[in-house]
């Protein structure tokens, strides 16, 4: 399988121009930045928990929501059909449509980290974990966008994702009382948080790979599912 960079870049450029004028969607990046500002003013030295509450919120709201909204709008305006009938392959479309989300997520995370003063002990390892997490959230956003009929529907359907993954660490406190919730430990946001704790304690790749593997597994499942849902959407029912 060969990928055409020209087509991927064309989708990225088009989405960038389009999103620049779409205030309803692009304004979502303000949410984690406002949270970061709030906590930086109210907390002297934010904990890893706090840094990652903002990071996970950024991933769930910016990454998943933008991806979901961008795809849902393509469906609503019947432009997705034009893409599906073009020579662009599924990977080219999925990658092209993810680049603008990736770009905005990185900007948001950098701004949030600057505001809260987050300086990871090992920036390379954290960057890898964040990148894999972004792939997972983009996959989830893509699936939800493909399942939504309109952009308004997409903004509702993505809410549980923002709640579970954005504020999921709060669910950890309930595990002792409700053992049925023990699966929460394996959610990618919780794994990312645990990973970040270990990084701060000076852990190396040997101790960290299991966290990365769990997040990667989530990302792979999300990407495969988004491909399957996209393939299904190519056909009318």
């Amino acid at each position: 399988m060969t990928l055409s960079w020209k087509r991927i870049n064309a989708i990225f450029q088009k989405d960038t121009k389009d999103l620049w004028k779409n205030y309803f969607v692009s304004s979502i990046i303000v949410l984690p930045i406002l949270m970061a500002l709030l906590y930086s003013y109210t907390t002297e030295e934010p904990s890893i928990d706090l840094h990652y509450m903002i990071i996970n919120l950024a991933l769930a709201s910016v990454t998943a929501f933008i991806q979901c909204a961008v795809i849902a709008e393509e469906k609503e305006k019947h432009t997705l059909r034009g893409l599906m009938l073009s020579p662009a392959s599924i990977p080219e479309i999925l990658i092209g449509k993810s680049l603008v989300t990736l770009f905005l997520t990185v900007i948001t995370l950098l701004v949030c980290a600057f505001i809260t003063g987050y300086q990871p002990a090992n920036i390379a390892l954290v960057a890898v974990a964040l990148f894999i997490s972004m792939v997972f959230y983009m996959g989830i956003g893509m699936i939800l966008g493909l399942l939504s009929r309109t952009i308004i529907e997409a903004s509702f359907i993505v809410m549980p994702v923002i709640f579970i993954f954005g504020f999921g660490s709060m669910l950890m406190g309930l595990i002792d009382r409700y053992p049925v919730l023990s699966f929460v430990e394996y959610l990618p946001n919780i794994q990312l948080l645990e990973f970040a704790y270990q990084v701060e304690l000076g852990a190396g790749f040997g101790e960290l790979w299991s966290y990365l593997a769990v997040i990667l597994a989530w990302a792979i499942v999300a990407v495969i599912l988004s491909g399957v849902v996209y393939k299904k959407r190519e056909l009318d029912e």
Partner: protein
Amino acid sequence: MENIIEVKNLAKVFGNQTALEDVNFNVKKGETFGFLGPSGSGKTTTIKILTGQLLQTSGDAEVFGVKNTSLNNGSYRKRIGVLSDNSGLYQRLSIIENLKFFCDLYDVPHKRIDEVLELVNLTNEKKKGISKLSKGMTQRVLLARTLLHEPELLFLDEPTSALDPTNSQQIHEGLRRLTEKGTTIFLTTHDMGEAETLCDRVAFLHKGKIQLLDEPKALRRQFADGTLRVELKSGNVVSIPAGAKGADELYQFMSKDEVVSVHSNEPTLGDIFVQVTGKELLV
């Protein structure tokens, strides 16, 4: 001549509703084939099946010799252009930005944009935002987008439905130029004038079945009532047999210098459709 589309015993059922039933036809290379019928007759369903957007319930459909179930690949998509009522444009971008995007998707040089814009008479509007365009202009941009990569086979679903007569005429002219170059066109329309102007052959689709299929001229001859319509200077219009029987009568009128015009009494495609299906060909 080579068949570009071959359809055999095609059927499509949605739940308990039959959309297509035992549909058979083929489209030859360079031909403009008209699929005529009212809304809900199965025209769009056929296009969706032929472009790989929908699977049939039974029967076979082949395009370029490939079964429609295997059409979801880039090489096939480069050879076709589809304009349908579910085609869309990016509303926040301008005409030129939309077309540049599709040029890059199809690997077509940007200079092609001016050619297609000229064809749809939008050269001076290219910087306009899509959201500011009228329905007719949007339809013309969609058509320009469909023609960008010079597809071998065009699927046009009601291409001039939102256009005024002048623009329709210009589009028809452009489509005729394309067929001269060898482009095959599969056209659905409820506009009989459009079908007569553009199509080499037409199929009447009604309730998911092809009722009639032939060249427009042949159909009109087949359904002609064998009379001539003679308009006289007195204002009267008389019908006389077109054969030897009417020759004397026509001679009488002509010798007295009473004739204004003589026309064969051939029905329009619309009349034939009503005759065959018992239904008006409404949108």
